C-alpha cells in the first residue's frame, strides 16, 4: 500500500487533489481510497486530505499516520502543524514553493529525509501561467507522478480531465505536464549530482 498525505488550505483544491490521485490509480486498475479530514467548510483553514493506493481492496479506515509521500500545497503551513509527522524513512516530500528544498531551511525536521526524495516545485507559478488561477494542485500532482513513479503521467492527466470541464481540465493538464517535465529533469539532476 502507498499512502499519500496532502496538506494545504481550504480553497486550494487539496481534497480534489486527493480525489484525482485516486482516480488516476483507478484508471491504472488499482484500488484507491481518498478522503479529507473533515471539518466545517471554511476558506483558508488548514485542510488535510489522504489517498491510499493498493493492488488489493483497501479495508483500512484510519487516517494516514505513516505517509509514504507528503504533498504540501501551502508553504505557510511548514512551521505550524506537525506537518512531517509519521513520514516513512524513504518517504517522498513535495512542497509547493519557488525556493529550493535547502533554502526552505526545515532544519531538524528534514534531517532524516532522503535528499533525493525531497523536492520543491513552483506549482502556484505554473498554475498562474497555465490555468490563470493560483490553485497549485494539478502541478503538484504532475510533480508527484514524476518523483514517485507510482502513477504514470498519462493516468494523472486523464484523471484531471475527468474532474474538470474540458477547457479548464486541459489547462490543468498543461500545468501538470510542465511540472512533470520539471521534476523529471530535476530528479535526473539529483541522481547525477549524487
Amino acid at each position: 500500500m502507498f499512502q499519500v498525505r496532502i496538506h494545504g488550505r481550504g480553497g486550494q483544491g487539496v481534497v480534489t487533489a486527493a480525489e484525482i490521485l485516486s482516480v488516476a490509480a483507478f484508471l491504472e486498475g488499482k484500488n484507491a481510497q481518498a478522503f479529507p479530514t473533515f471539518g466545517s467548510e471554511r476558506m483558508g483553514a488548514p485542510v488535510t486530505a489522504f489517498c491510499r493506493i493498493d493492488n488489493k481492496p483497501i479495508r483500512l479506515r484510519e487516517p494516514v499516520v505513516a505517509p509514504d509521500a507528503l504533498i504540501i500545497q501551502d508553504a505557510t503551513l511548514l512551521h505550524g502543524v506537525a506537518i512531517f509527522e509519521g513520514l516513512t524513512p524513504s518517504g517522498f516530500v513535495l512542497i509547493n514553493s519557488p525556493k529550493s528544498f535547502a533554502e526552505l531551511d526545515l532544519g531538524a525536521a528534514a534531517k532524516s529525509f532522503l535528499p533525493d526524495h525531497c523536492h520543491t516545485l513552483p506549482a502556484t507559478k505554473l498554475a498562474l501561467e497555465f490555468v490563470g488561477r493560483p490553485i497549485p494542485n494539478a502541478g503538484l500532482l504532475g510533480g508527484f507522478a514524476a518523483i514517485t513513479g507510482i502513477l504514470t503521467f498519462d493516468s494523472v492527466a486523464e484523471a484531471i480531465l475527468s474532474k474538470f470541464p474540458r477547457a479548464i481540465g486541459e489547462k490543468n493538464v498543461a500545468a501538470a505536464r510542465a511540472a512533470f517535465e520539471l521534476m523529471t529533469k530535476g530528479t535526473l539532476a539529483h541522481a547525477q549530482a549524487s
Partner: protein
Amino acid sequence: MRKQVETSRAIAETIALCKPEVICAYPITPQTHIVEGLAQMVQTGQLSNCEFINVESEFAALSVAIGASAAGARAYTATASQGLLFMAEAVYNASGLGLPIVMTIGNRAIGAPINIWNDHSDSMSMRDAGWIQLFAETAQEAADLHILAFRIAEELSCPVMVCVDGFILTHSYEQFDIVSQADVDAFLPAFEPRQVLDPAHPVSIGAMVGPEAFMEVRYLAHHKQLRALERIPVLSEEFERRFGHSTGGLLRTYRTEGAETIVVALGSVNGTIQDVVDDLRQEGSSIGSVSIGCYRPFPLAALRAALGHAERVVVVEKSLAPGIGGTLATDVRTALAGSGIPIFTAIAGLGGRAITKASLLSLFKKAEAGTLDDLLFLDLNLPLIQRHLDREKQQGRTGPTAENLLSDIRALAAQIG
C-alpha cells in the same frame, strides 16, 4: 459499471436506480452530498418520474415521505444526528403505520456538545422505533444496501434505515461497481402497498387504538421484526446471486473458525479490525471478528452461533449508554446469556475520534493476555479527564465542560514539549 466516485454519489446513483417516486430531504452534515446528487439527477432528468421536495425541516422530510408512501409512492429520505431526533415522532409513526420508507442515516454524533463527526449514537437512539436497521461495512455496501432496503421494506411493510458512517464512508472516494438498471428492475418489483390512500377505495389510516387492542398491535410489530430475521438472509442471498456482490445478511464472520478471541463491531471499523486480525493471525494469535450487518432486528441466534466457541468476546462500539456501558454490548450480552463467555466492551470512536490499527492491536493483545477491564474507553486522554474532575471539586461555577476541555487540550499540549 466500475467507477471511482464519492460514496455519497454512488449511493445517490444507486437510489436513482431504485426508481423512487418522492424524495424529500432536509440538509444536514454528513448526508448533504447524497441528497444533492439526487437533486441534480432529478433536475437533469436522469432520474425521471420523481418528485423532489425541498422541505423546511427533518420533521417535514419524514412527514412528506409518510404522506407519499401512504398514497402508494416509493419514498426516500436521509438524515443524521440532530435531524433524526427532530423527526423522532415521525420515525415511530412510520413504523407504526407500516410504511416502507427507506432512509439513509449518515451516522453522526448527537450534541450537546455539537459534533459533526461519526459515531452511532443517532441510529442507536431510534433502535426500538420498529424500523429495520442495516449497517454498511464498506462503501460498496453503503450503495448496495439501499436496493436491498427497498425490497425488504416493501415485502414486510416496514421502514428501513441504512446506516452509513458519516464522513468515513459518506465522504470517501472509492471504486464502485454501480449495478445495472435491468438487474435492479428484476430484483425490485414495483411497489405494491398493503394499505393505500385511494379515492376509489377509501380507508381511514392512523386511527386511535385503545387498551383493548394496543398490545396486539405491538405484538404484531415484534412479530414483523422476527419475520425480518428470517427474510433478510434469504433476500441477501438472492441479492448476491443477482448482482454478484456480497451485501447485507444478518452478520459476517471473518476468520472466526476456531478463534479464541472474537471481536464484534458495526460498520466501517470492521475494515480496520480485519486488517488487525490478519496481522495478529500472522503472529500466531487465535482471533477473528464478526461484523453485524443487521442491527435491528438483532440477530440473537446467528450471533450466538458465531460466538459460541469463543473464549472471550470484545465488543468495539461507537455508542455509549451513559452509566451502563455499551449499547451494542448490551445486545451482545443478551445473545450470549448463559454461555459464560466473558464480554469486554471498548467504547471507541465517539464523535469521530479515529480508531487506529495501533490502538486496536494493543486492545486485542490485552484481551488475549487477560488484562482488559470489562468496560473501557479507547484512547481516553486521562490527564484531561483528571483536570476536569479536579476543577469540579475546587470550583462551584466551573463553566461549560466542553469549553474547559478544549482549552485544557491546548494547555496540556503546550506542556508536552
